[in-house]
């Protein structure tokens, strides 16, 4: 009897595991089967390196959107990562226990705020400020970078904090014993020792920034043109899909799915980087 139960449970666990595998497989098959023929029809070079996106005239070039996704993500990393790492150092090494109990839940709360709320906040608070400062419409790379920089903070802070805490105390104490100041021992010994964990946090946050849609679509301007300044409006790969999918038909629809293929490849590369890094860490 107990044996039967064991077998049953084993099959149940297996089935549950299969569901997620199945989901990934079906998604892959769906987007590649629908997207790749569209890329073939448009022409690989015209699709990836074309600079004009005019579905109603039959032009499907997504190069401006690839560039936009890269710029916006880079901007988010430049803004979010230094703040995140320094916050993690503070939380791990400086923060009094009472304050920690207060700050930590707030950071976790930051992670659970829905992205549409971030988007609306940015639209009514950040956009007017940028508008005043730069005398442009206020929607663009800079605004999107600030928004994503804030959105990736929890990921960067939590992974960095965990890896800084994992560094053996003797590193820190050794540096202190050699006469280094507290700041110097932290930044020159502890943080470098935690770098692989910090890097994996950064890669995870790149994934989040590339994939973010709802918030970005509200504040990036969404012009499908090559950006010529840090304040010009851009359309990211994800925005392109979400904005036009509801109304698209025929080749336009397929081109949007093909955009998803490109996005998928992006995310795949990021995830491979992540697993290589993790494996390297395990070897150490």
């Amino acid at each position, binding site marked *: 009897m107990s044996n039967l139960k064991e077998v049953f449970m084993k099959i149940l666990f297996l089935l549950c595991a299969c569901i997620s595998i199945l989901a990934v497989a079906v998604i892959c098959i769906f987007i590649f089967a629908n997207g790749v023929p569209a890329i073939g029809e448009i022409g690989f070079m015209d699709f990836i390196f074309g600079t004009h996106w*005019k579905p*109603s005239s039959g032009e499907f070039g997504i190069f401006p959107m690839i560039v936009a996704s890269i710029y916006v993500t880079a901007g988010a990393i430049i803004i979010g990562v230094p703040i995140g790492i320094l916050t993690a150092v503070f939380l791990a090494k400086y923060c009094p226990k009472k304050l920690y109990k207060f700050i930590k839940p707030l950071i976790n709360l930051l992670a659970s705020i829905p992205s549409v709320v971030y988007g609306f906040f940015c639209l009514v608070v950040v956009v007017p400020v940028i508008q005043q400062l730069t*005398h442009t419409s206020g929607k663009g790379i800079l605004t999107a970078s600030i928004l994503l920089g804030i959105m990736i903070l929890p990921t960067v802070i939590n992974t960095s904090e965990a890896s800084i805490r994992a560094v053996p105390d003797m590193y820190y104490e050794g540096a202190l014993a050699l006469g280094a100041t507290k700041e110097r021992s932290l930044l020159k010994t502890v943080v470098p020792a935690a770098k692989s964990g910090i890097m994996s946090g950064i890669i995870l946050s790149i994934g989040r920034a590339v994939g973010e849609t709802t918030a970005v*679509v509200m504040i990036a301007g969404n*012009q499908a043109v090559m*950006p010529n300044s840090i304040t010009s409006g851009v359309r990211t790969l994800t925005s392109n899909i979400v904005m036009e999918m*509801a*109304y698209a038909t025929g080749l336009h629809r397929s081109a949007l799915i093909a955009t998803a293929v490109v996005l998928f490849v992006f995310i795949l590369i990021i995830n491979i980087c992540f697993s290589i890094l993790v494996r390297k860490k395990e070897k150490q």
Partner: protein
Amino acid sequence: MKKLICTVMAGAMLALSFAGCGSSSSSANSDSPSGTGITGAITVVSREDGSGTRGAFTELLGIVDDQKNDATTETAEITNSTSVMISTVAGNNNAIGYVSLGSLSDTVKAVKVDGVECNANNVKSGEYKVARPFNLAYCDGELSEAAQDLIDYIMSSDGQAIVEKEGYIPIASGSEYKSKNLDGKITVAGSTSVAPLMNVIADEYKKLNPNVSIEIQESGSTTGIQSATEKAVDIGMSSRELKDEETKTLTAKQIAMDGIAVIVNQSNTTDDLTSDIIKSIYLGNTTVWDEIQ
């Protein structure tokens, strides 16, 4: 290696920000008073390609190229929702946009087009030219009794009264509706512009026919029409005319008219724009407010 990448990336971002200093400075010239009270670059705000509102707007104002394709300037800001459109225009002195007459709010200012105010009367009389039809699309002869009855209700004087009350323009003057007390389930899907009107109509219809349940999905005109073609839903809602390929399988029934209001910021002193100026702005030929007298 990593340092190299970092340096290159930092360099690229720096170069980008310098480029920004050069090109983003607006050519505002406060010496020449303009007719709009606004100086500097026009922030053109449009809807996404494929939207029913955008399709009707560009078609009605002739914002098209030689092949009749949408030619809205590529530098126009794009938004995929009416609420973001309104808050963008409300928060930016230099912005111009357009929304459905039914969803117009006080936070922005609707301008006259060619001297004609955007209101229900002018749309009805045909004087206000930026107006579009609301259509229902369905497979003729294959409708359930309840679905046919719902359409009859919308076309009746009672249904058209709701259309008018909601700020849209009635197009039929049918007779009074008499409830047949049917039962059944009707699914309706499509345009996000038609859906708010449809919701009100459905509520009123259900009061008269308590045994009928109506399910309304908002998915955009094209998806709605597609679902009706595939018979996934009974009725598709569309805020644009049906294309030729779509009318092969479906029948379109116009239920109302809707005006598209051209909106500017409250601080903009202009009350009236000609359709040529709006066209020129959306084509990207007029780029600063100072040029508009």
